[in-house]
């Protein structure tokens, strides 16, 4: 903009009747833009500031916890018993609970979300896709507590018919339902990535005599690969942070096991449990939720960063 201004000024083109007006308006215009810029900057700054503040508070609160418990014990210990007389704070049981439930969720949501995305983007007639997509979004809008009770009261009894002796609380049921919950999310991010593939590429493939399926697998998929990976990673990150479903359906008992049939608490489930008042404020046990919270934030942050990076990659290719 300022380039154009200088050009008119130095060129001194007499042809424009508006020249004087444009010149007098210049500072008004610049002033306006500065105000808008400032507002936008504050908005962006707030978002960053909140994130930083959350991490800072977590760090601060966690530091009082780590004054009593060593980092090594925290990260490598296999017993999490903050309520016991002789409490131990090894977070691996919680971490494993989170990993197992998230893994089960991913096993459901990855393939299913991918197939739905592929169908909607490459195979479904446009009209049908328009009808189906709102349903997916509806599914994504269901409060997670509903999913939690769905897992506990419907899926678990169903699983108990297949797996005799399955406890009422178990990671399998929670993970499966959590998978269902993130399917729409994975599908929609992956579908965006596939739709971003230029039509010219598909046409190139069809013009070689390829079928719809060949085009989808050999051209659209590699072209949207990083976007699909982003969908997976962001989906996993959601599963890791999900709270209600696991708190309700997987139980709240820390349990160091990789067996999905067992009940176990996840990091998030533990945080709700403590936050709801099982431990007195200010106690080490209470402070522990900030320590595990920090771990949770770091995990999801890493996943989100990877996801966003992958997502950006597709934008750059085209």
């Amino acid at each position: 903009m300022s380039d154009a201004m200088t050009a008119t000024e130095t060129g001194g083109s007499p042809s424009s009747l508006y020249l004087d007006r444009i010149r007098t308006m210049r500072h008004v215009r610049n002033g306006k833009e500065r105000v808008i810029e400032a507002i936008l900057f504050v908005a962006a700054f707030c978002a960053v500031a909140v994130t930083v503040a959350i991490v800072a508070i977590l760090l601060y609160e966690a530091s009082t916890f780590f004054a009593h418990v060593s980092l090594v014990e925290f990260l490598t210990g296999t017993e999490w018993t903050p309520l016991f007389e002789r409490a131990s704070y090894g977070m691996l049981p919680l971490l494993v609970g989170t990993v197992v439930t998230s893994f089960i969720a991913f096993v459901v949501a990855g393939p299913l979300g991918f197939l739905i995305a592929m169908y909607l983007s490459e195979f479904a007639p446009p009209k049908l896709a328009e009808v189906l997509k709102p349903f997916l979004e509806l599914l994504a809008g269901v409060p997670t507590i509903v999913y939690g009770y769905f897992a506990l009261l419907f899926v678990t009894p169903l699983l108990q018919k297949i797996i005799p002796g399955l406890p009422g609380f178990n990671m399998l049921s929670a993970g499966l339902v959590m998978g269902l919950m993130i399917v729409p999310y994975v599908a929609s991010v992956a579908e965006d990535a596939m739709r971003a593939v230029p039509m010219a590429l598909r046409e190139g493939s069809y013009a070689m005599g390829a079928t719809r399926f060949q085009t989808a697998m050999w051209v659209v998929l590699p072209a949207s690969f990083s976007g699909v990976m982003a969908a997976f990673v962001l989906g996993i990150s959601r599963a890791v942070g999900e709270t209600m479903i696991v708190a309700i359906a997987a139980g709240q008992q820390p349990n160091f096991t990789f067996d999905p049939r067992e009940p176990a608490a996840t990091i998030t489930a533990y945080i709700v449990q403590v936050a709801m008042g099982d431990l007195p404020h200010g106690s080490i046990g209470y402070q522990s939720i900030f320590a595990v919270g920090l771990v949770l934030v770091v995990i999801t942050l890493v996943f989100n960063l990877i996801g966003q990076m992958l997502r950006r990659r597709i934008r750059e290719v085209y």
Partner: protein
Amino acid sequence: MSEQNNATIVSEPLKAETRKFNFYYGDNHALKNVDLPVAERMVTALIGPSGCGKSTLLRSFNRMHDLYPGNRYEGEIRLYPDDVNLVSPAVDPIEIRMRISMVFQKPNPFPKTIFENVAYGLMVRGEKRRSVLEEKVEEALRGAALWEEVKDRLDDLAFNLSGGQQQRLCIARALAADPEIILFDEPTSALDPIATASIEELIAEIKEKVTILIVTHNMQQAARISDYTAFMYLGELVEFGRTDELFVRPRKKQTEDYITGRFG
């Protein structure tokens, strides 16, 4: 318009021919009673102002319009020597696309390696034997005058090539499928003059083996590389003739106005 005359202008055997061909994008009647003969192993150029239907006609030859709903062909495009009407619903568009390749306006290499790009048409046909693929890929790349430049980097991603190289890669991709006709839609409009010259040279070589139908906005290009030229206007084929005649002695006023740049 004297319909029967167009085919008699051609002295070579015909590779294809549209007869009373109409095309509709939904309600938009984009091509009207087009009678275009396509001489075997010759270059036929389609020229005309923007929006006159050149791409629409070209893309009818490989049934590209089947990909989108609401499109409708009417009339015939006969493909010789088997004399089938290739736009008939009874004819499999995939078979047609395997026989008639296409090179697009903007180079559109696949997000794959150079090798896989060229081998694509063969892989689509189910060819998996490495030796066959290698042989065909080399032959096609040589045919597209790209072999020397890429022979040591066949496993590089095709995106890393320059625009002109990418377009030659797309030509190699088309050639590797052993097509009977190659359709070119303004293949040089995104390229610089040097890359353009090399593509034009290539077309002159390819036509020894393959029939070529090319859309171009560049009249000099049409004059340089084509044997026959069709001038289109508002969805109609206004004039068809030998290129050396059409550009020197156009029979229609509209054609003359267009080629002398006095249009509209």
